[in-house]
């Protein structure tokens, strides 16, 4: 068994609403080359196993894992696919290295959301085919139900949610990879059209295309490959009820449980004290607030107030989604968590450019699999 595992290389294409000049394979190759160059490894020689995250209906191909190896250097090597978020993928690579059987493992995730012409209908096909799908409802209704109950139980206001949009899209202006940067006011956000009241369209992340690949290594290899290893202190993942009828509508239980698992590994008792920067799921604005509470950064009902007060802005108490989050970078389907973790890696290395936060030693990334799932993951990284 190998105890310690580090991220030793990262590569990313940047994100845009469309990417018509390249196929998904060419896009993934671009991220892969950057990551392997960053890590100083040759995938054909050095990388011993590969993990990818993908969903068939997002790709338009059944058993999509078929098409994953060539563009990541994985042909005729141990490659497998997880139908999870990118953070599930990182957790998988982490486990593979910890077995002692592999020293260097790569993890890839991407989005070609722009290629799905009927994304909302594809998403609706994830609803229970007997209980829910006959109602023929756009899946945003699930977020609407969840947000309403969350606001009701916690006393969070609509303005609090809008403040998340203002912050994250403003942060995105400092991120050259983020296509949705904007300088908005709370009124701008609230005056947009409704998706599923109380959820507004401007509180929902647009989709983007892009790819991310990361290289993980065991402690021995990591110290040989890089002088800036980013250590995995903890990885947690969890599922709440799959059935809409059985879940707790107000709370992100999956995030609570995933955080519990990750904190236990990392030996963290007081997250707010221990963690210097966080990148959390904000595919819907209220999700960021719900996540901050589930992750134990504050008590229930406080996240919105802290956001309005600026506590989660860059260079404040706990900078959250300095990258711009999904609201600023776009919803990347299975790659969302990788984008969150990518920012944490840059911050911990001190390579985040104009948006670099000072004195960061421990960072947290969190993700959610989107409606109608109740599945998410948490990763804790340190420099």
């Amino acid at each position, binding site marked *: 068994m190998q105890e310690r595992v580090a991220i030793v290389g990262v590569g990313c294409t940047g994100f845009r609403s469309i990417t018509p000049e390249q196929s998904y394979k060419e896009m993934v190759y*671009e991220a892969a080359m950057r990551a392997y160059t960053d890590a100083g490894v040759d995938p054909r020689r050095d990388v011993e196993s590969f993990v990818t995250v993908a969903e068939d209906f997002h790709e338009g191909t059944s058993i999509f894992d078929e098409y994953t190896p060539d563009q990541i250097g994985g042909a005729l090597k141990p490659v497998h696919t997880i139908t999870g978020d990118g953070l599930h993928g990182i957790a998988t690579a982490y486990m593979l290295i910890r077995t002692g059987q592999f020293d260097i493992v790569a993890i890839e995730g991407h989005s070609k959301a722009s290629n799905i012409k009927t994304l909302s209908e594809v998403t609706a096909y994830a609803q229970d085919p007997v209980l829910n799908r006959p*109602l023929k409802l756009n899946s945003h209704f699930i977020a609407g139900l969840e947000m309403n109950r969350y606001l009701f139980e916690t006393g969070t206001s609509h303005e609090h949610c809008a403040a998340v949009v203002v912050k994250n899209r403003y942060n995105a202006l400092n991120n050259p990879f983020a296509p949705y940067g904007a300088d908005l006011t709370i009124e701008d956000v609230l005056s947009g059209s409704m998706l599923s009241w109380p959820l507004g369209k401007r509180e929902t992340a647009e989709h983007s295309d892009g790819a991310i690949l990361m290289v993980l290594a065991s402690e021995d290899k990591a110290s040989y490959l890089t002088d800036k290893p980013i250590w995995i202190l903890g990885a947690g993942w969890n599922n709440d009820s799959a059935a809409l*009828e059985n879940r707790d509508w107000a709370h992100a239980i999956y995030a609570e449980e995933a955080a519990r698992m990750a904190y236990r590994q990392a030996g963290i008792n007081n997250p707010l004290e221990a963690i210097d920067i966080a990148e959390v799921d904000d595919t819907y604005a209220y999700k960021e607030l719900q996540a901050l509470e589930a992750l134990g950064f504050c008590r229930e009902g406080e996240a919105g107030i802290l956001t309005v007060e600026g506590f989660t802005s860059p260079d404040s108490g706990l900078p959250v989604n300095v990258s711009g989050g999904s609201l600023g970078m776009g919803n990347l389907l299975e790659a969302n968590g990788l984008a969150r973790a990518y920012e944490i890696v840059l911050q911990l290395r001190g390579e985040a450019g104009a948006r670099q936060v000072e004195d960061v030693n421990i960072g947290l990334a969190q993700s959610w699999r989107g409606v109608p799932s109740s599945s998410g993951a948490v990763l804790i990284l340190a420099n």
Partner: protein
Amino acid sequence: MVLLNRDPNSPIIWNGELPITNRYTYGLAGEKFFRTLKDEGRILGTHCPHCERTYVPAAIFCERCLAKLNDWVDVGTTGEVNTFTFLHVNLNGSSLEKPEIIAFVRFGDGGLIHRLGDTNPDQVEIGMMVQAVFKPPSKRIGSILDIDYFKPV
């Protein structure tokens, strides 16, 4: 990142589809739940004595302990609005002319997702009691749509 130049006459996209057509059985629990809904206009749950939870709609297993559930209970047709939303978009993402009121109506420890009717948006609130409005027996087919909608009590 590549050395090759794209043929300037290349088509940018290739259009296609996933031709997926499915037939779903209702399963062990669904069979009894929906037969009872259709034939008797009753909503059934199942109870797990070990976890002290009542699943609605009825399930054949407890998701917590995986025990088989044999204890069927009638939970009535009136439940509490646990949460609701006004949905402004269609299945395909286009705007609805008039938003639909969608609610999660609590029965036992579970409940049903459905539409609300016979009410206007201003009157809907969390905690209100609503009742299932069934289609006439001759029009029921054994479906969640055998309930037309829920209306305030």
